[in-house]
């Protein structure tokens, strides 16, 4: 209160304007330095920045190691739900992601494709390892207890259902077809739906990979 009074009473009329300008410059500098969201990235895919929670889970990777979302901080993450006994759509998606990664060249080393199995009964870490390795060296298979997989799926408002028609081990699993993309800080940024073009995905990954991790 005394400060306000002091400003109002004693300063030259020009000074508050000068201070205001200085303040704006300072604020601008702080904004640029600490928070990239002030200047939104021109992302082309469905922008989910601020609308989906940060990447977090407790699962087992394809080497059998327990991992959490924090293990992938510093990487741009492409999260995709699927299962290995899916002969059509999952391989199609992973093959397309592989082509996108190739188009990114050396930048792609800063990205990870996390293929989360919605069929943890059949998809062991070893099976997942062979499977994802057949598509891209930057792909990691994740599995876990049905509850842990469901928790991750629900976190991103995704869903999967084991189709009831099959009687034996050849059942199909319906699952979310979207790819969730997270920045290096683990923030959800864009959603790639099946109708999204590869050019747009590569464009957005390029932007995110060229942005350093900052919270």
């Amino acid at each position, binding site marked *: 209160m005394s400060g306000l009074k002091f400003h109002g009473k004693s300063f030259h009329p020009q000074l508050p304007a000068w201070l205001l300008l200085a303040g704006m410059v300072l604020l601008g500098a702080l904004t640029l330095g600490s928070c990239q969201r002030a200047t939104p990235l021109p992302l082309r895919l469905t922008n989910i920045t601020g609308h989906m929670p940060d990447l977090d889970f407790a699962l087992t990777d394809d080497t059998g190691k327990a991992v959490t979302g924090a293990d992938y901080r510093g990487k741009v993450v492409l999260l995709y739900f699927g299962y290995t006994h899916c002969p059509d*759509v999952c*391989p199609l998606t992973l093959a397309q992601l592989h082509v996108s990664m190739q188009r990114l060249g050396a930048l792609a080393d800063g990205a990870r494709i996390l293929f989360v199995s919605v069929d943890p009964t059949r998809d062991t870490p070893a099976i997942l390892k062979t499977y994802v390795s057949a598509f891209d060296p930057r792909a990691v298979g994740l599995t876990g207890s049905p509850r842990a997989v469901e928790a991750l799926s629900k976190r991103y408002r995704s869903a999967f259902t084991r189709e009831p028609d099959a009687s034996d081990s050849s059942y199909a699993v319906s699952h979310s077809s979207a790819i969730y993309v997270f920045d290096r800080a683990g923030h959800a940024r864009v959603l790639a739906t099946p109708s999204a073009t590869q050019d747009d995905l590569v464009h957005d990954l390029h932007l995110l990979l060229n942005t350093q991790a900052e919270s």
Partner: protein
Amino acid sequence: MRALGFAALLGVAMLPGALYATSANDVRVSHAWLRILPGDLPAGGYATLQNTGTQPAALTGAHSTTYADVMLHLSSVAGGTSRMRMAEAMSIPAQGTAKLAPGGYHLMLTRPVHPVIPGDHVLLTLTFADGSTLNTTFIARPANAADAGPDRPTQPATAHALPTTHGAVHDHD
């Protein structure tokens, strides 16, 4: 008489006036390939089917000596969810084309009797709703392949080149 003999021999139900117009006779297959996944995981089968005939054709499935099971499936995306279900048939319009393609109709091949590796040629017998069959060679491609491959832009049906007891009827027969 000759035509009737053929029909009886082949066990093909034919429409009057279209004695030789079996689907197997009308359909040309190209870009036939299999997506080979690691281990014993199911493979996906894809091809372009062109119907040169004046009657619509319908692919009902396929069988092979290399895989214990071959099923015609249909993948779909609705409400953001990918689904796969068995399909009765894929229709190929007269003078038209239909594709077994990733994300849509495809063959799901399970339980290979021996390991199939990329580069292998796998013989599949396509079956049509009219009972006719067509032997086709599919090229095995790696898991991350997008199509039949640049090295093999077309993959003609090879029924004429392979000994078979139930091959397609040909115009020149």
